[in-house]
């Protein structure tokens, strides 16, 4: 935690210094006020000197005003520092996560990353604010209070030696019991969240299986569990304040008694007694404050650790120091000079060659590679399909091209250049990727389609939609291109979502198109028409198609058959049908014997 604080608070050194000075002013003022009050009683009230009371009173108000002003200015700066700290940390986390490859994303999990960037930052930010506003002043008040109390009367200060440890010990006992309870409460709150999330996600199934009662019981168990822990925590704290109050109150009784003895013996003026009482309370309050602050420390420390973990995780995929750009014959057909096209791809078919050279990949920490010795070439204008059973490595293979992961051996090359030697941004500009999960972003149809090319005209969007077989339904949507899309694209059907995702990639007009099982939600007819349109419109591009359905891929120029991380066959549909057992098995599993014979 200290490291995180030190690093992200450094830019705020000056405001922090100002806050410290202001806190000092406040502390001195606060310590001075009881003295003035004591004087009013000693020299004013008890001597009947109203003039003195008035003048001291006005001085007291001036001090109060200064303290108040210092406090307001202090709050201004501490609010800025704490919130600025939060902002900076959030920003650092977000940038870090953006730099992560899929390896790191998987390691943390998306929900956890979101929590870390929001909730955890808030915890630490709150602590920073509290430290600046309160905790720093606690030691000042304690030390100052002790000095002043001792100045009032040394022997009476002995009381502190008894009271302080008593309070600290009591708080320590409470904390030692409370902190584990809080920890477990957090876990139980998570459980409530989990059960509720499952209930919401599975509402159809729950009702279909008539398990509402069962789910309610599950929720109730979690609820009761949370309740009993929360109750224990709160009951624990129910005793804290009365006990602390009692300790404080009893110490005032002690001061009265021993103070009276000292006054009687003439060793202490009576005014000092009241002043002493105030200092005593001030000290004890400061102690209490500091101790109670500490309850936030463990939580904030946990959060800081979680943040630190993100910030310190090195992305496993880096840009090279000296990036290489594949040499290309730059003859882009549309010479409008727009980014993302010229010099990267050309539609005459001389760019976009993909080569896998003896590629091996294993997940970090995994014993066995999920991909062995994969080698193949996809030329511009070619359609290369990849089929195979679940877990055979198809998706892994295509994920290596955009460098979601880096190969562990061998190389992936685009136009003859190892992708690891290229800037990732440069690699991505050459790719049009349609992922397995067609994820759309909040916005409109158009804003989603323009993801690949911000400057694409409406005509270009319609053209891409036409190829993706999405023109009809977009035309029917209220607002057409401007029809709203909810997060994730949940307001359109699975098939529509997939077609929009395909159109999005087409708008980019990249030279390499990667379809990762992107036709699964389409019916056969749409699938076939889409592929035909692709051939017409994007015939010049290199196309990699991962698919399950034989119908989708059998027209491909080349089909790679994968099994257990190896490419076990390569050829056209008819070649493979004749020669490759794995492929035959796949084909016959999808077409009944009757159909195959027909």
């Amino acid at each position, binding site marked *: 935690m200290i490291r995180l604080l030190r690093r992200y608070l450094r830019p705020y050194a000056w405001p922090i210094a100002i806050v410290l000075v202001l806190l000092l002013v406040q502390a001195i003022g606060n310590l001075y006020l009881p003295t003035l009050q004591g004087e009013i009683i000693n020299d004013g*009230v008890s001597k009947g000197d109203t003039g003195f009371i008035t003048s001291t009173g006005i001085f007291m108000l001036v001090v*109060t005003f200064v303290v*108040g002003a210092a406090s307001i200015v202090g*709050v201004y700066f501490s*609010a800025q520092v704490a919130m600025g700290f939060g902002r900076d940390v959030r920003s650092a986390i977000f940038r870090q996560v953006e730099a992560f490859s899929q390896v790191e994303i998987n390691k943390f999990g998306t929900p956890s990353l979101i929590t870390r960037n929001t909730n955890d930052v808030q915890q630490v930010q709150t602590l920073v604010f509290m430290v600046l506003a309160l905790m720093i002043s606690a030691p000042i008040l304690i030390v100052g209070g002790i000095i002043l109390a001792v100045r009032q009367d040394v022997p009476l200060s002995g009381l502190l030696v008894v009271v302080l440890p008593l309070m600290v010990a009591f708080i320590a006992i409470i904390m030692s019991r409370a902190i584990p309870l809080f920890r477990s409460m957090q876990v139980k709150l998570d459980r409530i969240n989990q059960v509720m999330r499952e209930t919401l996600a599975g509402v159809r199934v729950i009702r279909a299986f008539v398990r509402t009662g069962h789910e309610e019981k599950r929720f109730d168990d979690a609820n009761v569990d949370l309740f009993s822990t929360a109750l224990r925590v709160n009951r624990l704290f129910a005793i804290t304040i009365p006990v602390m109050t009692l300790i404080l*109150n009893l110490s005032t009784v002690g001061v009265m008694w021993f103070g009276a003895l000292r006054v009687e013996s003439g060793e202490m003026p009576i005014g000092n007694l009241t002043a002493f009482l105030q200092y005593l309370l001030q000290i004890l309050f400061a102690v209490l404050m500091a101790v109670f602050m500490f309850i*936030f420390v463990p939580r904030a420390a946990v959060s800081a650790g979680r943040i630190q973990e993100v910030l310190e995780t090195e992305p496993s995929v880096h840009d090279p120091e000296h990036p290489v750009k594949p040499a290309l014959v730059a003859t882009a057909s549309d010479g409008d000079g727009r980014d993302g096209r010229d010099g990267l791809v050309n539609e005459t078919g001389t760019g976009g060659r993909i080569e896998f050279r003896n590629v091996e990949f294993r997940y970090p920490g995994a014993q066995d590679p999920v991909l062995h010795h994969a080698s193949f070439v996809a030329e511009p204008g070619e359609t290369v399909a990849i089929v195979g059973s*679940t877990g055979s490595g198809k998706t892994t293979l295509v994920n290596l091209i955009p460098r979601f992961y880096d190969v562990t051996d061998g190389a992936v090359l685009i136009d003859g250049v190892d992708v690891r030697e290229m800037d990732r941004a440069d690699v991505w500009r050459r790719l049009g990727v349609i992922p397995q999960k067609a994820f759309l972003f909040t916005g409109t149809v158009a804003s989603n389609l323009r993801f690949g090319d911000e400057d694409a005209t409406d005509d270009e969007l319609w053209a891409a939609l036409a190829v993706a077989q999405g023109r009809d339904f977009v035309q029917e949507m209220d607002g057409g291109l401007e029809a709203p899309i909810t997060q994730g694209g949940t307001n359109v059907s699975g098939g529509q979502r997939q077609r929009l995702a395909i159109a999005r990639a087409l708008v980019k007009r990249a030279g390499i198109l990667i379809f990762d099982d992107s036709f*699964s939600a389409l019916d056969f007819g749409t699938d076939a028409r889409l592929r035909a349109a692709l051939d017409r419109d994007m015939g010049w591009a290199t196309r990699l198609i991962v698919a399950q359905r034989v119908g989708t891929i059998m027209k491909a120029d080349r089909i790679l058959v994968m099994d257990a991380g190896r490419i076990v066959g390569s050829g056209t549909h008819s070649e493979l049908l004749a020669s490759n057992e794995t492929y035959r098995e796949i084909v016959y599993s999808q077409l009944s014997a009757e159909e195959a014979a027909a």
Partner: protein
Amino acid sequence: MSFRPGGNGQNPGGNGTQPAAGAPLFGPGAGGAGRPAAGGPPPGGFGPGGRRPGGGGPGMMGMMSMPVQKPGNFRVSFRRLLQRLAPERVLVVLVVVLAVISVAFAVIGPKILGNATNDIFNGYISSQLPAGVSKDQVVAGLRANGQGQLADMVAAMDLHPGQGIDFSALAGILFILIGVYVLSSIFSWMQSWIMAGVTQRTVRRLRTDVDEKLGRLPLKYFDSHPRGDVLSRVTNDIDNIGQTLQQSLTQLITSVLTIVGVLALMLTISPILAVISILSVPLSVFITVLIAGRSQKRFAAQWASTGDLNAHVEEMHTGHAIVKVFGRQQEAIETFDRENEKLYQASYQAQFISGTIQPALTFVSNLNYVGIAVIGGLQVASGLMTLGDVIAFIQYSRQFTFPIIQTASIANVLQSAVASAERVFELLDEPEEVADPAEPIRLPTTRGAVAFEDISFRYEPDKPLIDDLSLVADAGHSIAIVGPTGAGKTTLVNLLMRFYELDGGRITIDGVDTRDMTRDDLRRTFGMVLQDTWLFHGTIRENIAYGRDGATDDEIHAAAEAAHVDHFVRTLPDGYDTVIDDDATNLSAGEKQLLTIARAFLANPSILILDEATSSVDTRTEVLIQRAMAGLMEGRTAFVIAHRLSTIRDADTILVMNKGRIVEQGNHESLLARGGFYAELYNSQFTEALAEAV
């Protein structure tokens, strides 16, 4: 309930002055100790304690926990929130009684302490006087010296010249004081202890109510509300309410009681001084209202920004890979920075503005202090009041200030809690499903004959969907539902399972209108295997057993075997005890589907709804799924959302859907002969695909 940061209403201005900071620091929540510590000398009141350290200081509560929304109807919702406490009313009354006692003791404390001070002071003055001189002589002597004021003062004192402090009297007073303090703490503890139960039980009930409510809401609600929002109501909002109940109610009780009690005592001591203190009340209220009003807006802005930022982070992290390959990282970061900056601006302003309440009110209280000291000093000097009374009064004035600051903070906290309560009540007020019939018809066994009789249905009143559809599915028949992508095939499922209500006509099972059955009975006759498999966090065994309550292990294994998943499960290291994690990432899509088929086998329904989609299922698993599904359909009425030609051709009836409507029905031959939509669909899709394939 917790020390979540949300609750920590650390008051930025808290250290503004005096231990006063202690008040919000300990959270006015307090159960009982919510009164300034009796006994401290002037500024030393032990702040209204909180059960929860860091319970909401003025305004800060809202900032850290929930978006502060302007409650639309604050009073109604607030009253409704209080009504939630009704089941605990006996205990609430008890809490109030205990609070009264506790506050009474706490308020008496300073009065007694004042007596002790007087005792010491009198003894001190007395010891300064020569023994054997009477008080009257002293007074006369002072007057003779022209010290009229001092003479008046001394005249009012209970002096025994030369005697010094009366320690036995002091001891008596202090013992009483100890008793008062101990009792006050005990009562305060009891009150807090009971209140913890009251609020936690109330929160638990609220959560249960919401969960049960969700069980009665129509599917339409779930289809039209973002999951995250509903979730947030159940967790964040209820949590916020819980925190506030815990803190504010006891705090409110003790604050009000303290104000009343202190005011009463002040008046008994000195009406003139009391007036000064009373004057500071409207001033404090005015300042609080002024500042809180401004901070409220900033809090609202802060929470709006937090929401925006969260949404952006969530979306960008979820679509991480796409953001990357489309080269949109720069834009993502720019948007993030923009939202982040907005959040920063709103939150530091909110912090700052609400942070000024404390110093401002402290200044008012010090002003009050000086006023009392000046006038009190004059009164003591002129012998109208004793020194002890003035000191006690000053303490009371402190005690008076704290509850006012507290009440200000409660107002702020309540705004946020009521906003949350409104969101929860809104959910509780959602229209529920049509109630099950009072005397439902129960079918001892179902054969599975399903008939649609002139049904009509639409999701949106102005968009016709299904009109006058009739269909008969005899027991054991299979009905294939076909149509292009997005044809709205799930609508049929929604109607069959009564997830949605018909607008007209009726659906019967074995001749019984489904609306005459309970939903539970109706749904038990169905088995459903959907494309979106739904597995929950638990073991494979538990997930299969979901099909039927109290299934034995043998039955579970048999079901798994029938679904061709038994072998796979047994190859797993933990077999049936393998825990499926939240996203079921440890199973492939096909394996998940097999498990849901096993679940349906176990449930043994007479009617099936199957979704044949085969996306992302590898081909070998696909074979297993096909076999399992075929086995499952044997002897059962089945509605199949079909993609496979064989399924469609073998179906007894084919429903052809297009754009959400059923356009044709009949068997394969009759539909082909008709040369309509189906024929077109068939020719364009299946024959082509087939021709290509072989």
